[in-house]
C-alpha cells in the first residue's frame, strides 16, 4: 500500500522496474530550457540514435525522391534538409513513443497516450505554447498507471473496469492502492527531473475544477477530446465531466473552425501514427 508521506521514495523504487527514461528527450528538454537549441548539437545528438536517425532519413528521403534525387545515408545531412523543428519533433515523438511502448501496460495505454499527446500538441500549437512539452506530457500523463499495474495487475484491472461507467477511477485507485495514478505519475516525472509544468500536468489531469498552467489545461482537455473523438476506439471512452476552467484558460470555442480543423488533424495524425 502506498501512502502520501513516503510516496516519492516508493515511486523511486518502482521506477527501477520501468525502462530508463530516454536520455535524448532529457537533453532536448535541457536545451529548450536554455532557449538555445543549436541545430548542429541537436542533429549530432539525433544522429547517434539509430531509430531517430532512420526516421530523419525517411523524412528527408521522401522529399528527395519527389525530386528524383538519390537517397541519403547521412542523418546529419538529412537533418539539414528537413529543418530543426522537424528534427525536434522526431526526437520527441520517437523517444517518447519508444519509451511508453516498452513499459508494461498493454496496447491501450500506449494508443491512448499517443492520442492525448497528439491532441495536446495540436492544442499547444493553437495556443502558441510549447508543442514539445505538450507531446511529452501527453505521452506521460497516465504513466502512474504503470506503477499501479506493477504493484497488483489484477486489482488495477478491476479498479479500471469498475470505473468505466462512473468515471471515479482516481477515487478507487486511492482507496485500493493508497495513491492514484495522477500522484504516482507526477512523482515519476519528478524522479526523472522533468520540468515542473509536466509534473503539474500529470498531477492534475483528472482535476475538473482546477487550472494550474496552460499545459495542465491542455492535457486535461486532450483527455476529454480523444474520448469524444473515440481515439483509440474503445467501449471505455466516456465523456461525462469537462473542466470548464481549462476551456476558459485556453479560450476554446468547441464549435469554431479552428477546433473543427483540430479534430480532423488529431484523428488523421493518430491514424497515420498507428497504421505502421
Amino acid at each position, binding site marked *: 500500500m502506498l501512502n502520501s508521506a513516503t510516496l516519492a521514495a516508493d515511486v523511486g523504487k518502482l521506477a527501477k522496474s520501468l525502462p530508463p527514461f530516454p536520455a535524448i528527450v532529457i537533453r532536448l528538454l535541457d536545451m529548450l530550457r536554455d532557449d538555445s537549441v543549436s541545430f548542429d548539437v541537436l542533429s549530432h545528438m539525433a544522429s547517434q540514435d539509430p531509430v531517430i536517425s532512420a526516421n530523419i532519413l525517411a523524412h528527408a528521403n521522401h522529399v528527395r525522391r519527389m525530386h528524383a534525387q538519390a537517397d541519403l545515408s547521412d542523418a546529419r545531412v538529412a537533418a539539414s534538409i528537413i529543418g530543426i523543428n522537424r528534427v525536434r519533433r522526431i526526437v520527441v515523438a520517437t523517444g517518447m513513443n519508444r519509451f511508453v511502448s516498452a513499459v508494461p501496460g498493454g496496447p491501450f495505454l500506449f494508443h491512448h497516450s499517443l492520442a492525448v499527446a497528439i491532441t495536446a500538441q495540436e492544442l499547444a500549437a493553437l495556443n502558441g505554447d510549447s508543442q514539445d512539452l505538450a507531446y511529452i506530457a501527453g505521452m506521460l500523463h497516465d504513466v502512474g498507471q504503470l506503477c499501479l499495474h506493477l504493484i497488483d495487475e489484477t486489482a488495477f484491472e478491476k479498479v479500471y473496469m469498475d470505473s468505466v461507467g462512473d468515471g471515479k477511477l482516481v477515487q478507487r485507485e486511492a482507496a485500493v492502492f493508497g495513491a492514484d495514478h495522477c500522484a504516482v505519475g507526477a512523482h515519476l516525472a519528478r524522479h526523472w527531473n522533468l520540468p515542473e509544468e509536466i509534473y503539474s500536468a500529470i498531477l492534475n489531469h483528472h482535476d475538473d475544477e482546477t487550472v494550474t498552467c496552460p499545459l495542465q489545461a491542455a492535457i486535461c482537455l486532450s483527455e476529454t477530446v480523444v474520448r469524444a473523438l473515440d481515439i483509440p476506439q474503445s467501449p471505455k471512452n466516456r465523456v461525462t465531466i469537462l473542466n470548464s476552467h481549462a476551456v476558459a484558460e485556453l479560450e476554446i470555442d468547441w464549435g469554431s473552425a479552428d477546433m473543427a480543423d483540430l479534430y480532423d488533424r488529431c484523428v488523421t*495524425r493518430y491514424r497515420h501514427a498507428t497504421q505502421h
Partner: protein
Amino acid sequence: MELNPGMVLAKPVSASSGGYATMSLSAGGMLTEETIAQLVVKGIECVAVVNTDPVSASQYAQAVHSYEARLHQIFEPTPNAHCQDLLTAMLLRGPMPC
C-alpha cells in the same frame, strides 16, 4: 495517405515561426513537389486535400447515423452543460471520411 503532387488543398495552410508567418497556401491550390517539401520542412504533419473519390449519399447517411449513435453512447449518462457544448460541436462536425 501520403501527399502527392497534383492533389488540391481543401483548406488553407499556414505556418509561423517566432511570430512571423513562414507559409501561407490557399484552399484550391494544387500541391507541387516544392510545396510538399516546404510542408515537411515547416513541420506540418497533415493538410486537408480534396477527396477525389467521394462516398454516395446513402453511404454518407449511414456513416452519420453510426457516428451520432456512437457519440450519444460516449456522452451518456446525461452530460453536464459544459460537455453538451462539446457534444454539439462533435455532432455538427459529422463523421470523417476514412
